[in-house]
């Protein structure tokens, strides 16, 4: 199979979808690679380097499309300035295009490629699950943008970001506010911290507080009940009241903040307006605002996409090519993501687009011209797993492996268990009917209570934290000492000697259970201290 690597023609895009290293990897695994001349030049990868890696260099863009079975691009196909044609017109039936695509915003392009019968895998449609970390370009590029944002901010700041002690005096650290603590935001926080700045961060999702704090930044909280966690780990659109409170917070922070980096994007929609003109006016002259959402409207009212402007002494940067500004590493990461994707697709010898794979199903926009996007929603999973996966998505820098949430039965037992369960179910029903017909009313009455109690127990126990499982075992053990009642009830004045002895014995052992069980539980629970309590105790000792 042949892979073609196209040169990006959109203005300002310096990245390339394959670097010599990944090309060598492709050649090794059996692909033939054709690279357009100059494809990696702006990212620092020469044609010579590609040749050394085993690729053939194609002088003309159309010939890449002509020869390749799989075409790798960074940005979606667009009008080619050198040939009066659209890149999509070079696609042919069955050809596979892998690139960023944004199908929701590019309906025309989708139709165009659909007419040509092409297959499209959109790199921006990768599901935010832990298994997809390796192929997630949005995260890899967002991390770079976040970092670069800090570089641009400090570059324009003209002062030290961190504390400096010199004979000529001491400087105070700059105060940086990062709005949005997703992949880009966290990268920005980390970069700013590395440079020594004092970093404050805000996000509508409370779950990221811990991540922010783990980077050494302070998490700013609103006194608000609304929770911003949407689906897929993205924030959702908040209510107006919330947004007002948010803006009040920023207004308060404005005169204290030296650099603001905003990263609040909502997939498929215009970016929320968070930094208004008044706030910029309240900022000190010499301050900087970097708006990473400039491409979709910008978080700052004064942002001009693609430009750097000045307002009232404050520099407002709205570059839309942050990742491209670090084209060398950005291409390296991008190419690595793409290479992982090709590995997922089976490499050269076993290449296949397996639509049972959740990742591929979400990514595929067109299959031989047929529209496959958007993918049908999967049935909701266990809420426990959802929570864990959402946490995983936000901290894409820290992949969390959520494996084996359900008990995995190996082949034969699960096949055997199903019919067993069915027979058990039928037997259970038959049993219930028998009870209903033959059992005395007292029994049925007790049985009803029994079943209901089981349900109550079921509901209550699921909420117990794993760290408290041992005390739970201990307390339920103590409570099961209730069997003492059985013993007590035997010991009546008119009982037979045998019954008396047995009753006393039962009472005795059950009593050990009751007293021992509760006391042990008490001992255990006294030990579970929170950080404050622990600190008190530790300082006291």
């Amino acid at each position, binding site marked *: 199979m042949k892979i073609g690597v196209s040169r990006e023609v959109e203005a300002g895009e310096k990245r390339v979808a394959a670097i010599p290293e990944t090309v060598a990897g492709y050649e090794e695994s059996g692909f033939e690679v054709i690279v357009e001349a100059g494809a990696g030049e702006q990212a620092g990868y020469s044609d010579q380097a590609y040749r050394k890696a085993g690729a053939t260099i194609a002088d003309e863009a159309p010939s890449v499309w002509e020869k390749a079975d799989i075409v790798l691009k960074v940005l979606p196909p667009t009008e080619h300035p050198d040939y009066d044609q659209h890149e999509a017109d070079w696609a042919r039936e069955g050809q596979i295009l892998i690139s960023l695509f944004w199908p929701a915003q590019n309906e025309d392009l989708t139709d165009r490629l659909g007419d040509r019968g092409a297959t499209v895998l959109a790199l921006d449609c990768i599901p935010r699950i832990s298994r997809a970390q390796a192929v997630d370009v949005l995260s890899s590029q967002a991390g770079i943008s976040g970092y670069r944002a800090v570089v641009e901010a400090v570059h324009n700041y003209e002062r030290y970001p961190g504390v400096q002690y010199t004979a000529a005096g001491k400087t105070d650290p700059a105060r940086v506010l990062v709005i949005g603590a997703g992949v880009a935001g966290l990268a920005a926080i980390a970069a700013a911290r590395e440079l020594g700045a004092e970093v404050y961060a805000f996000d509508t999702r409370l779950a990221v507080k811990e991540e922010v704090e783990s980077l050494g930044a302070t998490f700013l909280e609103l006194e608000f009940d609304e929770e911003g966690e949407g689906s897929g780990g993205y924030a959702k659109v908040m209510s107006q009241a919330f947004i007002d409170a948010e803006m009040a917070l920023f207004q308060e922070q404005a005169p204290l903040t030296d650099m603001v980096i905003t990263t609040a994007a909502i997939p498929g929609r215009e970016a929320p307006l968070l930094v208004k003109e008044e706030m910029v006016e309240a900022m000190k002259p010499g301050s900087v605002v970097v708006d990473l959402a400039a491409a979709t409207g910008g978080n700052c009212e004064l942002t001009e996409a693609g430009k750097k402007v000045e307002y009232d002494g404050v520099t407002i940067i709205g570059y839309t090519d942050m990742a491209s500004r670090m084209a060398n590493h950005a291409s390296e990461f991008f190419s690595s993501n793409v290479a992982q994707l090709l590995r997922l697709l089976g490499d050269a010898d076993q290449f296949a687009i397996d639509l049972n794979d959740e990742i591929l199903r979400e990514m595929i926009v067109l299959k031989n011209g047929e529209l496959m996007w958007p993918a049908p929603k999967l049935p909701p999973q266990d809420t426990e797993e959802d929570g864990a996966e959402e*946490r995983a998505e936000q901290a894409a820098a820290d*992949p969390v*492996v959520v494996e084996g949430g359900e*008990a*995995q039965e*190996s082949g034969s037992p699960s096949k*055997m268990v199903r019919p067993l369960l069915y027979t058990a179910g039928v037997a259970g029903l038959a049993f219930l009917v028998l009870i209903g017909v033959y059992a005395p009313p007292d029994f049925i009455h*007790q049985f009803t*209570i*029994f*079943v209901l*109690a*089981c349900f109550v*127990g079921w509901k209550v*126990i699921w909420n117990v934290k*794993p*760290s*408290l*499982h041992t*005390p*739970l*075992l*201990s307390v*339920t*053990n*103590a*409570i*099961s000492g*209730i069997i003492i*009642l*059985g*013993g*007590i009830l*035997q*010991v*009546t004045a*008119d009982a037979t000697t*045998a*019954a*008396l002895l*047995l009753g*006393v014995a*039962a*009472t*005795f*052992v059950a009593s*050990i259970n*009751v*007293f*021992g*069980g*509760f*006391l*042990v539980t*008490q001992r255990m629970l006294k030990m*579970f*201290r929170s*950080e404050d309590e622990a600190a008190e*105790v*530790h300082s006291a000792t």
Partner: protein
Amino acid sequence: MLPEGLLTVIYLAAAVLFILSLGGLSREDTARRGNIFGIVGMALAIGATLFHDPGMAYHILLGAVAAGAIIGIIVALRVAMTAMPEMVAMLHSFVGLAAVAVGFASYLGAAPETGMTVYLIEIYVAVAVGAITFTGSVVAWAKLSGRVSGAPLLLPARHVLNALVVLVIIAAGVFFAAAPFGEAINPLVVNAVLASLLGIHLVAAIGGADMPVVVSLLNSYSGWAAAAAGFMLSNILLIVTGALVGSSGAILSYIMCRGMNRSIWNVVFGGFGTADTKSDTVTTDDGVEREVITVTAEDVVDELKNAERVAIVPGYGMAVARAQHGISEMTHKLRGMDVDVTFGIHPVAGRMPGHMNVLLAEANIPYEVVKELEEINGDFASTDVVLVVGANDIVNPTAQTDSTSPIYGMPQLEVWNAKRVYVLKRSLSTGYAGVANPLFFNENTAMFFGDARASIEGVVEHL
């Protein structure tokens, strides 16, 4: 003295208090309150029962209760947290024993006017479940306290054997229920004996690594035994409480199995449908002599001092060595030096659910830094130093790669992703599951041999 209705209402109050008690355990800050609720509920129930019928023989009863109380209190005060699993197992056996005793006592007592057959069946079931719980718990206690080997006792055709025993119990039950009341004590005795044997066999066949599940299963059985006794005595509180405890234990068992990524059938019936666990030592699969890097306390301290993030993964070895206090001191010192310290707890670390958490809490480690597997697994890549203290099967990479391994598929704490891993162990011997661990031979892993407590104390000294 107490009208029947009032007694029932008091039982209702007790049941509600028990439910609140269990609910309180869903969070650390409400947990202590939960225990108090349980105590109050129990006190109400016992008090009301003792004084509801003037025909009761108080002096004997109070004597029995007091005697049990004294023993219970002494044992509870003296038990070490590391011995918690076996103590819980032992206590479960008492509930089973009590159920059997009460069952026999009922049979030797007055016959009921109506519902004879159902009553007989209830007695029979109560004795059966009680006996299984009793002997099963005793075997569990013996295994956990090391008096009996942890290796599973796998008799040939053991499933057939179990099935046969169950059939005989049922057959005897038919005889029992058909006979006039009070005259068929023999089938009941046979029932008790066979059920006891079944209990022994079931627990003996479960391997040591699965003990946490066994403990929760027996917890569940003790609940069902109490419930069965409740049906027998027509006591609503016994039925409700038994159901609560029974489902609690069942859920915990299920959670444990999920934590080991095996089905509950697999665990209980030991290798149902899959290869039986070989308790054995695969050294290195190519027979090559692998070297391990060994370090001393000073080496470890150097790394710790320069680290920003440290993670500690405790296992049963920490419990055995009673190293949790040393670890606590080390943690506090490190935190004072601005080193971030967290703990990674695997769901089946230790010998019973939540075992590690209890030990760490005893050592005054705040629960916020104690993380579960899903919370911490992603952090290892950005962790500078991991200290694996007496843990083995939960940090074994072959569980993810080797499909013939007995622990294949079990979620692991991926400590090998960290920059440096120190394994505190007494020797290179295998863990409870009897599986060799290639983690020890990794390039970024070093073995810190010695008794965990002594090793940690050495580290604290040099910090």
